[in-house]
């Protein structure tokens, strides 16, 4: 997903040995007794929109939802790669598939209550799955369209029943979910907040700023997007699984909105805030990396920055031009724009390092091999000369955010070097992502980012470059390049089917698909970023999950 609508980032996470060993050295009960209490103070430039967990699609709030809401299954609350492991949450266990991989029967845990005191039951689960469609969740048509009855729900959300798709048995305490076809990514999809289990009475419209009760360790109390968000302990919470929903150390979490990036850094430096959501501005990086090194955590993300090239608009409708740009880009220069080699790594393929299906390879470099080394300007120039497109006008569309604009300016400079008349148009970050998706805007090339929703190769390749993701004339056409190769599409479908029975072989196939796509070069992968967490001195036991970043519930402030 895009950085602004994203949720989970991360990739090949490196476990922070120091913090994990700290926890393992003492029993959790001792730690809880010693450190329980206090208030965690967070700051961000702006609020993340609606508080509704089935509607909101931002990392900013998905991070908070981890301690407020639960699904039938969950990503383990752990460090690094452990954070991508699936564990049973409201369900007693992760069920085996039956009916040729199309049916799952979940047995609900007993005795769990919502924060408003009501008991969790199978009716809540059934209603929650229906609600995904009733509130037109952003992923209802992509993550949950494989559930039996989903087609009818998508066509008429208000009357959604998911008949035959989600069946509750109150007496047995089970929920049966039937799929149209086997889906190797099904558990990932129901582990994200859009599949959170809410009270059956929850409104069937976006609740906006009115929190919905959850089952997690904390609950939202007040939310004013122009000011703050407050979370306190859920009085009805009893820990049932440390891996799925651990009790938190702090008593409350206060999230303040409205500071500038610079102001956020200063607030954390002064101890007025414990953590800043936004990445520190580039001209403060050296300062915090030097003077506050022990308060800084840098972790890799399974994400990439890329320049999608519209394969249906000149000059990028010529594969040679697309390949030429890939050859000409100095990816090290772009790494510098992002903050240097500590914070980013050059890439020239789509699947990020450490991600399922990733194999180190780079065809667009001076000496093609496993890694990118240097731009090959001669080859790039020759390809442009062959294409006969020199002198054409090209506009690079970027966000008006600093790094995006700088990356776009650099790409325009490269295109100028190749003989084009290139310019940059920076538009508001609020609309750039939808603007570049809509073919009516005739965008030739743009700058974008993609962060994983869950750890599966299809979440990059199939989502970003399949024919099904290309919707001409729509603001929701995430295949920004407009790339549609039926041969590659068929291979992706086959790989997804193969993943049900043989994930390793499927991942090997995804690696080949990655290369096949890059031969067509519908985009120029630029670099994979790392994430900087800047914390106050008092925050201890920092854990960075590859799925949901900082696990706040595991940190203490006293």
């Amino acid at each position, binding site marked *: 997903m895009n950085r602004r609508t994203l949720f989970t980032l991360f990739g090949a996470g490196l476990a922070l040995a120091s913090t994990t060993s700290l926890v393992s050295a003492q029993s959790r009960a001792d730690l809880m007794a010693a450190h329980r209490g206090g208030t965690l103070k967070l700051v961000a430039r702006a609020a993340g929109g609606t508080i509704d967990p089935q509607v909101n699609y931002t990392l900013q709030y998905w991070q908070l939802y981890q301690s407020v809401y639960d699904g039938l299954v969950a990503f383990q609350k752990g460090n690094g790669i452990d954070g991508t492991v699936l564990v049973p949450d409201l369900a007693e266990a992760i069920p085996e598939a039956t009916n040729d991989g199309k049916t799952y029967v979940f047995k609900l845990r007993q005795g769990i209550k919502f924060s408003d005191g009501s008991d969790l039951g199978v009716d809540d689960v059934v209603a929650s799955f229906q609600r995904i469609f009733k509130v037109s969740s952003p992923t209802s048509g992509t993550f949950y369209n494989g559930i039996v009855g989903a087609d009818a729900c998508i066509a008429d959300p208000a009357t959604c029943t998911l008949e035959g798709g989600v069946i509750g048995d109150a007496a047995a305490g089970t929920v049966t979910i039937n799929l149209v076809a086997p889906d190797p990514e099904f558990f990932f999809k129901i582990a994200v907040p859009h599949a959170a289990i809410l009270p059956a009475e929850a409104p069937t419209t976006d609740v906006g700023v009115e929190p919905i009760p959850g089952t997690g360790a904390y609950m939202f109390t007040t939310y004013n997007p122009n000011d703050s968000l407050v979370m306190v302990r859920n009085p009805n919470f009893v820990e049932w699984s440390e891996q799925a929903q651990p009790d938190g150390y702090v008593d409350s979490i206060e999230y303040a909105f409205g500071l500038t990036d610079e102001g956020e850094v200063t607030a954390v430096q002064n101890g007025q805030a414990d953590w800043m959501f936004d990445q520190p*501005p580039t001209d*403060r990086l050296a*300062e915090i990396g030097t*003077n506050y090194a022990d308060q800084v955590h840098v972790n890799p993300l399974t994400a990439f920055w890329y320049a999608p090239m519209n394969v249906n608009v000149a000059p990028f409708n010529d594969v040679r031009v697309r390949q030429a740009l890939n050859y000409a880009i100095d990816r090290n220069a772009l790494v510098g724009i992002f*903050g*240097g080699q500590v914070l980013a790594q050059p890439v020239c393929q789509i699947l990020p390092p450490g991600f399922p299906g990733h194999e180190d390879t780079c065809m667009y470099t001076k000496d093609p091999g496993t890694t990118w080394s240097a731009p090959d300007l001669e080859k790039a120039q020759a390809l442009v000369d062959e294409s006969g497109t020199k002198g054409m006008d090209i506009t690079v569309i970027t966000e008006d955010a600093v790094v995006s604009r700088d990356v776009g300016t650099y790409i325009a*400079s490269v295109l100028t*070097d190749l003989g084009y008349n290139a310019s940059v148009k920076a538009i508001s970050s609020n609309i750039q992502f939808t603007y570049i998706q809509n073919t009516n805007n005739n965008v030739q090339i743009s700058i974008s980012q993609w962060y994983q929703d869950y750890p599966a190769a299809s979440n990059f390749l199939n989502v970003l470059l399949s024919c099904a993701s290309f919707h001409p004339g729509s603001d929701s056409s995430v295949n920004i390049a407009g790339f549609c190769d039926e041969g590659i599409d068929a291979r992706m479908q086959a790989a997804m089917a193969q993943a049900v029975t043989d994930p390793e072989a499927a991942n090997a196939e995804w690696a080949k698909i990655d290369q096949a796509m890059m031969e067509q070069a519908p985009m120029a992968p630029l670099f994979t970023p790392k994430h*900087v967490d800047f914390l106050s001195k008092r925050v201890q036991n920092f854990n960075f999950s590859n799925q949901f970043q900082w696990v706040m519930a595991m940190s203490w402030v006293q």
Partner: protein
Amino acid sequence: MTDALTSTTSAPVPEKRSGRGPWATALSRLRRSRSAVLSSLVLLIIIVMCALAPFYASLAGSDPFRSNLGGKIMLNGAEVAVMQPSTTGLGLGVSPIGPTWTTQYMLGADTQGRDVAARLLYGGRNSLFIAGAATVICLILSAVIGIVAGFSGGVVDMVLSRIMDVLWAFPVYLLAISLSIVLLNSSFSIGPFTVTSGSLILPIGIIGVIYVPYVARPVRSKVLTLRNSEFVLASVGLGMPVHRVLTRDILPNVVPTLIVFVPILLALAIVTESALSFLSIGVQPPDASWGTIIQDGQTLLYSRPMVALAPGVAIAVTVLALNVLGDCLRDALDPRFKLG
């Protein structure tokens, strides 16, 4: 006797006076004003420096419009990277080189590794050009609207005046930002001419239009006074065609008012252009203006303040000089004013 009689009855021939016209008087007054001379000199220096931008760029050996992220320069006999990775602590961040006070990267580099001094000079060319062109457009439109409204009176005056009132009712920057956002999103055509989204014509046109009420209203007031003056009434009474009255009697008397507005409008246009470019809705990269350079420097305020400071100072000095010159010009053209 005859000779004497002849000499006493001849009418005396008055001595021809060598009085100066109002323009020469105004110029003379300006020359005698230290403030006017100093501000003119400052403006002249700025214009000449900006005109010499290509010369400086060639001397510095850098292209101010292309990224130079991997570039290196010789400084004090050593090769130095233009973009310098942090080598302390965790090694986070890459900073552009600071001011070298040599011909290369005299004021340092921006986030693209470009020479700030070269961009400052090229940016000044754009800022001054946009301001100048916008001022001309604004003065022409204002003169036409003000004269037509003031001289015609009646319905024409009412309609034009209300249009000006509506335009003036919008905060200037809000109007400029709204127009920029709408027009910048796509190219548009007027007859055979196509204006692309990155064209300088857009900020010129926008700035030229938004200040029209600011000038047109005083022009109209002046024309209302002139319309009832004796020499205009005489011309009308003698049956002079309207266009002759307007061009021979009205326009020459309105010109001093317009001239007084020139430096003020230039200053306003420079500031407005900078504001629009700072908000990414004026001059589009890789083109530069003082506003875009300030925007570039905004992200470097902490580590490389010179990037934002240099264009900021350039704007401040230019606008100050224009305002001082404007005051002097107003005084010089005022027949009631006596320079001390």
